[in-house]
C-alpha cells in the first residue's frame, strides 16, 4: 500500500481552510436575502469575508478547528491499521503547520496532547469496505460550540407534546434550534437521526451531515420534512449569531434507523455555519478532492 500521509494532510488543510462551495453559496444566498444595514446582514458579510480570507491565506476558517471525523471507504484487502497510522500522522503534521489547533484534552488529567492525537477515539476514524477499486475519504471538522447545543430526545416527550411520529420528530428538531439560539454560531445545519440506540442515533446524525446542502432526500416523506423544518426553523427568526433574521438554519438532513420497539430516539447534531467537510478520492494512483 502506498504512503498517503501527504494526501491526507492536504485533505485536512483543505477542510480547515477552504469552505465547500455548496455551503458558501448557501451563506451568500442568506446574505443577499438579509435586510441591508441589519445586524444579520453585517454578520453574514463578515462571515463571507472571513471565508475568502481563510481560503486566500490558507489559514483556519475558525480558531476552533473542531473534532476531526474521518469516514474511510476502502476496497477489499486494504490495511486499516496502515490507513489509521497515516491519518494520525497527517493530523499531527497539520497541527504543527497550524491548520489545526491543538484540541485533544485528556479529560482525566486535563492535559492537552498538543498534536490532536489522543487515545483510540481522537481523531475519530470510521472504516467501511466498499466494492469500488479506489479509496474515498470524507473528513468533517465539528466545532465545540455547535456540538454543545446538539440534543437527543426520547419520544414520547411530554414537555414538547411530542409523540412517536414525524410530528414528534419535528417538535424535537425545532426545540433544538430554539434552545441553541445563536450559541452554535447560527445559521446552522441540522443532522437528524430518527431511531437506533442512543449511540448509533447520534453517530447517524453526524453521517447525515455528509450530504450536500442542495441535494434532496431519496425518501419523499423525509424530503418533505427536511424542507418544512428549514422553513419553520427560519420562522423562529433567531438569525445569524442570534442577532435576529431569517437565516437561522441553512439546511436539515434526516436519516431513519431501525429501533427497538421500546425506544424512539431523535438525535440532532447542530453544525455551525463553518460547515467544514471535504472528500478525497484516490483512484488508479491519482488523488483528487471535492
Amino acid at each position, binding site marked *: 500500500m502506498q504512503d498517503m500521509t501527504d494526501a491526507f494532510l492536504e485533505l485536512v488543510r483543505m477542510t480547515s481552510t477552504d469552505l465547500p462551495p455548496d455551503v458558501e453559496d448557501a451563506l451568500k444566498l442568506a446574505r443577499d436575502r438579509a435586510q441591508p*444595514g*441589519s*445586524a444579520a446582514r*453585517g*454578520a453574514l458579510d*463578515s*462571515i463571507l*469575508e*472571513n471565508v475568502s*480570507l*481563510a481560503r486566500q*491565506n490558507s*489559514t*483556519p*476558517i*475558525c*480558531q*476552533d478547528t473542531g473534532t476531526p471525523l474521518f469516514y474511510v471507504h476502502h476496497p477489499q484487502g486494504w490495511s486499516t491499521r496502515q490507513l489509521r497510522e497515516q491519518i494520525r500522522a497527517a493530523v499531527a503534521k497539520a497541527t504543527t503547520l*497550524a491548520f489545526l*489547533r491543538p484540541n485533544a484534552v485528556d479529560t482525566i488529567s486535563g492535559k492537552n496532547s498538543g498534536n490532536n492525537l489522543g487515545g483510540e477515539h481522537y481523531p475519530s476514524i470510521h472504516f467501511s469496505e466498499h466494492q469500488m477499486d479506489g479509496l474515498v475519504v470524507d473528513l468533517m471538522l465539528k*466545532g465545540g*460550540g455547535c456540538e454543545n447545543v446538539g440534543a437527543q430526545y426520547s419520544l414520547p416527550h411530554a414537555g*414538547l*407534546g411530542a409523540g412517536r411520529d414525524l410530528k414528534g420528530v419535528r*417538535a424535537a428538531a*425545532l*426545540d433544538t434550534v*430554539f434552545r441553541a*439560539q*445563536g*450559541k452554535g*454560531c447560527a445559521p446552522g445545519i441540522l443532522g437528524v437521526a430518527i431511531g437506533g440506540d442512543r449511540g448509533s442515533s447520534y453517530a447517524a446524525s453526524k453521517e447525515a451531515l455528509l450530504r450536500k446542502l442542495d441535494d434532496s432526500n431519496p425518501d419523499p416523506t423525509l424530503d418533505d420534512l427536511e424542507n418544512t423544518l428549514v422553513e*419553520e426553523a427560519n*420562522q*423562529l*427568526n*433567531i*438569525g445569524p*449569531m*442570534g*442577532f*435576529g433574521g431569517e437565516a437561522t438554519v441553512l439546511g436539515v438532513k434526516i436519516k431513519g434507523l431501525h429501533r427497538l420497539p421500546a425506544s424512539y430516539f431523535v438525535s440532532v447534531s447542530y453544525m*455551525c*455555519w*463553518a460547515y467544514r467537510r471535504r472528500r478525497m478520492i484516490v483512484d488508479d494512483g491519482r488523488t483528487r478532492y471535492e
Partner: protein
Amino acid sequence: MRKLSIPISDDQIRELNMGDPVLLSGVMLTGRDTVHKWMIETFIEESRQPVDDDKKVYEAIRPILDGGAIYHCGPVVAGLDTGDYRFVAAGPTTSIREEPYQGDVMRHFNLKAVIGKGGMADKTLAACQEVPAVYLHAIGGAASLIAQSVRKVRGVRKLDFGVPEAMWEIEVVDFPAVVTMDSHGKSLHAEIEAQSRAVLESLLA
C-alpha cells in the same frame, strides 16, 4: 456602519442602540476567566494581597481600560519564541462565564465596551446602564477576519496565566461587532429568545 474609536465617550455610548453594527478601532485588552477573577479579588474586593507585579500591572492597565474595551478572547498567537507577537486566529469566546464579575469590573475601571459572544445577563445589563457601557457581540468563527483587524500586538501582561488567559494589549482597526446590549436596558439576546419562544409555541400548538 458606525465607526467607534477608543476611548469612547459617554455620549457616544448613549447614541448606540441594540442591533447597531459597529466597527471598532483603538487599543484594547483581552481578558477572560483568570483575568476577571484576578481583578476582582486583588483590586475590587481586595480579598487577596497583591503580589509580584500585580500593582504595576494594575497601574499600567487602568488608563487603557478607562473609557476603553475588554475582549473575551483566547487568541492563537505566533511569535511566542521571539516576542514578535502576531495574532493568527482571534475569534470571541463565550462571555457568560464572566457574568459574576463583569459588572463590578466595568464600574471599577469605567469600561465602555465588553466584547465577546453569546451575550450576558442581568447584572451586566444593569452595569451597562449605570456606567454607561455596551456589550458588543463579535462574529463567532470569523477568526481570520478578526485576526486581520488586529494590526499590532503592543504587548502582553500576566503571560504566566497562559497564552489564552493572559492580557494582550492589541491595536485594532475596524473590528466588526454588533451592539447586542445597550446602555438603555435593552438586550437583543433576551428579545430574540422571547420572540422565538412565542413562534415555537404557536408552531407546536
